[in-house]
């Protein structure tokens, strides 16, 4: 369709798929080194190809962006047809780089991390599979194909969460994640149906072209409904209220999985989707408002829970949820580029955090409870330093990446006259403070103070250690045919006390990610701080072009407003930035006070305000509420009504009744079949008479 060169984009998703297939089919017989090689080669190839594509992309003429490559007609039903094609523009390019890059790094890390686990080939096969689906999702050129990737990553995350499927909690968590996602997916599907009904297609370009001329609707019209449904789907995938519950449990999966899928890439799919359909949202301010509110709520809610968690990975999980809330907030205030920016930086430092945490856990031989850590600073210095970078980054200390992205979001939340408001900004600010607090709490508890020996062995860890050494992986090792004789002692050797630094294959990625977490923010330094927001400029074609008509209809000229009162705006922006930094510092100081200088303080506070504490430690009883409100009724209803009532009472009854009746009837009619030829002849004669009678009747009539 467009004269632009053919990049063979389909290669990018296919490569990991090949790797996955190879490992999945033959991996069982491969040596571990070979499995790792295959996985790394294919994911790395995808990364390299993505880099090449990026290089090419820069040379593309502006006219031929978005660059669309249609492979073949995929579905053809009536006048509705979907091509199997790929769609490359600045947005998907960024996502592409993030996914492949972080994915590749985490692959490398996993090689070392999973070295002693069973089901090695399974793990890497799943991981590659996830890459394939994620890339499909990112590169898809129609909502339908995106949905394929959407479901696919859901599948991959299910498989990987339940990787140690012999462990009850892991299996449960996998199911929980899958089902919760289904709820969101359903909404997404409905949204797509609405789109089909309206535009008769699901291709991005066609849909957007269809939306552009439409007026911005402030009532609950078609666009708003669609947008809300889409947003609900995004909530499912990106773990927003009310569908965030699966993400913390998803930490049952191996830590690299948590890093890759449940921090860096998959969970951001919802954000990506909203950003992708920004034109739709721009036409539905109500939906935008809802997005912003949900984002803000999720952010502060999760952050508050994160304050008191003791499982290192759970803390990170809740922080992920709250950061995703940030991104939603950004999207909700029409700061899509800021959202994506934060998405990118967050991918780096959150992946880094998880990997570092994984390194810690690995070093402690499966210990996850921060109360049993401490004083690891000297013991695992590399982990410590990388972790430090990540912590400062996420807490929003300049000049690390987190600062710029978060700051831009806050600024937009405050300043955007159309969608933003100071309440959102305030919530965001408080969240920032909480984030800084619990991150440094984690930091101090883990690396400072003196070593606190575990009260009991990690095997019966109440929080359900992902790495319960011996137990799950060993059994999985059994089950998946990989001799775990190396695994079990490997773990039990450092079941308790002695700590060791992780191998280089794990530290390398940490370092790489640390550098990323440090510098990644510099691509988007706002004008206020002397930079000129390259990232925003880069993404602007995707967003502003599509949101122009909105502005136009609102007769709210964007450019002039920027120019005329640029001065005061700059000052305002600087003040806000300063405030957020201040809040971050405040959080740091509080954490230092509580967990470094006077470690007994938290218990006292917890005791004094026990109600709030228990509420937080139990995560506001949301899970319990869901159980009481939804799950138990459904289960009981299906057991009593559907099973005992409908299935046994109606369906089985019908089937058996049919059987018995036919038996009775044939018992009667079988007398006809006496085996005596002449009686048959009698029947035939009678029948012939009837036929002739009918023919005569029909003929004479």
């Amino acid at each position, binding site marked *: 369709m467009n004269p632009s060169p053919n990049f063979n984009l389909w290669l990018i998703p296919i490569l990991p798929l090949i790797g996955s297939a190879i490992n999945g089919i033959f991996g069982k017989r491969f040596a571990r080194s070979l499995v790792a090689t295959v996985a790394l080669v294919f994911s790395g190839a995808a990364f390299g190809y993505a880099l090449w594509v990026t290089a090419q992309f820069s040379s593309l003429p502006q006219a031929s962006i978005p660059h669309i490559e249609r492979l073949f007609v995929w579905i053809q039903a009536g006048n509705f047809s979907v091509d199997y094609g790929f769609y490359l523009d600045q947005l998907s390019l960024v996502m592409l780089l993030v996914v492949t890059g972080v994915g590749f790094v985490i692959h490398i890390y996993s090689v070392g991390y999973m070295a002693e686990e069973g089901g090695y080939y399974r793990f890497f096969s799943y991981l590659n599979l996830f890459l394939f689906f994620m890339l499909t999702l990112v590169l898809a050129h129609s909502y339908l194909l995106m949905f394929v990737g959407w479901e696919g990553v859901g599948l991959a995350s299910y498989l990987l969460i339940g990787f140690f499927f012999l462990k009850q909690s892991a299996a449960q968590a996998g199911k929980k994640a899958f089902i919760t996602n289904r709820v969101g997916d359903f909404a997404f599907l409905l949204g797509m149906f609405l789109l089909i009904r309206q535009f008769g297609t699901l291709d991005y370009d066609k849909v957007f072209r269809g939306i552009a001329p439409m007026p911005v609707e402030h009532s609950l019209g078609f666009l708003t409904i669609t947008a809300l449904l889409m947003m609900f789907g995004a909530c499912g995938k990106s773990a927003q209220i009310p569908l965030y519950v699966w993400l913390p449990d998803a930490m049952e999966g191996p830590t690299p999985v948590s890093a890759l899928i449940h921090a860096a890439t998959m969970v951001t799919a919802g954000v990506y989707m909203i950003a992708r359909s920004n034109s739709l949202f721009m036409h539905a301010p109500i939906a935008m408002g809802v997005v912003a509110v949900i984002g803000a709520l999720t952010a502060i809610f999760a952050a508050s829970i994160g304050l008191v968690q003791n499982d290192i990975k759970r803390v990170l999980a809740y922080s992920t949820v709250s950061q995703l809330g940030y991104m939603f907030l950004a999207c909700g205030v029409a700061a899509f580029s800021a959202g994506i920016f934060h998405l990118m930086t967050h991918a780096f430092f959150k992946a880094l955090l998880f990997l570092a945490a994984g390194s810690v856990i690995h070093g402690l031989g499966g210990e996850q409870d921060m109360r049993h850590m401490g004083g690891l600073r000297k013991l695992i210095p590399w982990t410590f330093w990388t972790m430090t970078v990540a912590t400062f980054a996420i807490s929003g200390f300049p000049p690390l990446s987190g600062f710029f992205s978060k700051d831009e979001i806050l600024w937009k939340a405050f300043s955007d006259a159309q969608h933003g408001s100071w309440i959102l900004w305030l919530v965001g600010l408080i969240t920032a403070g909480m984030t800084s607090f619990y991150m440094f709490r984690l930091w101090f508890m883990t690396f400072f103070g003196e070593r606190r020996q575990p009260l009991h062995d990690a095997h019966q860890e109440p929080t359900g250690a992902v790495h319960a050494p011996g137990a799950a992986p060993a059994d999985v090792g059994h089950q998946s045919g990989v001799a775990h004789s190396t695994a079990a002692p490997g773990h039990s050797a450092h079941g308790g006390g002695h700590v060791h630094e992780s191998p280089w294959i794990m530290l390398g990625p940490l370092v790489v990610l640390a550098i990323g977490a440090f510098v990644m923010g510099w691509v988007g330094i706002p004008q206020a701080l002397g930079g000129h927001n390259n990232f925003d400029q880069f993404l602007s074609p995707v967003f502003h072009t599509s949101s122009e008509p909105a502005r136009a209809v609102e007769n709210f000229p964007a450019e002039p407003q920027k120019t005329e009162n640029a001065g005061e705006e700059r000052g305002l922006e600087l003040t806000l930035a300063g405030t957020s930094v201040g809040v971050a510092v405040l959080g740091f100081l509080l954490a230092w006070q509580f967990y470094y200088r006077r470690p007994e303080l938290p218990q006292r506070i917890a005791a004094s305000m026990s109600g709030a504490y228990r509420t937080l430690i139990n995560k506001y009883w949301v899970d319990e509420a869901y159980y009481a409100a939804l799950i138990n009724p459904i289960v009981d209803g299906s057991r009593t009504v559907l099973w005992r009532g409908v299935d046994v009472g109606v369906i089985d009854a019908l089937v058996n009744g049919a059987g018995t009746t036919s038996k009775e009837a044939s018992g009667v009619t079988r007398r006809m079949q*006496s*085996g*005596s*030829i*002449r009686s048959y*002849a*009698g029947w035939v*004669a009678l029948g012939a008479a009837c036929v002739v009678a009918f023919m005569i009747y029909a003929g004479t009539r």
Partner: protein
Amino acid sequence: MVPLSWYLTLGAILFAIGVAAFLVKRNIITIFMSIELMLNAVNLTFVAFANHWHQVSGQVFVFFVMVVAAAEAAVGLAIIIAVFRTRETLNVDQVNLLKL
């Protein structure tokens, strides 16, 4: 000058007799013969109508009927022989069981 209806009636009579024979006869071979009789009656009707419509097709069909009859006779008689070997009887009323 014979009305065509005479031929048809004759065919009907022969056919009816054939059916009757099928119904009352007990000997398998005779029953087969009555089938042949019915086929012949049909042939007569074919030829009569061929004469009426001045169509060759009617007579061609007679050939096919004959072919089928011949095949049927060959196979049927072979079956009769096989049955007779096992049952030692030709009476259809005594071969009303599939198993021996």
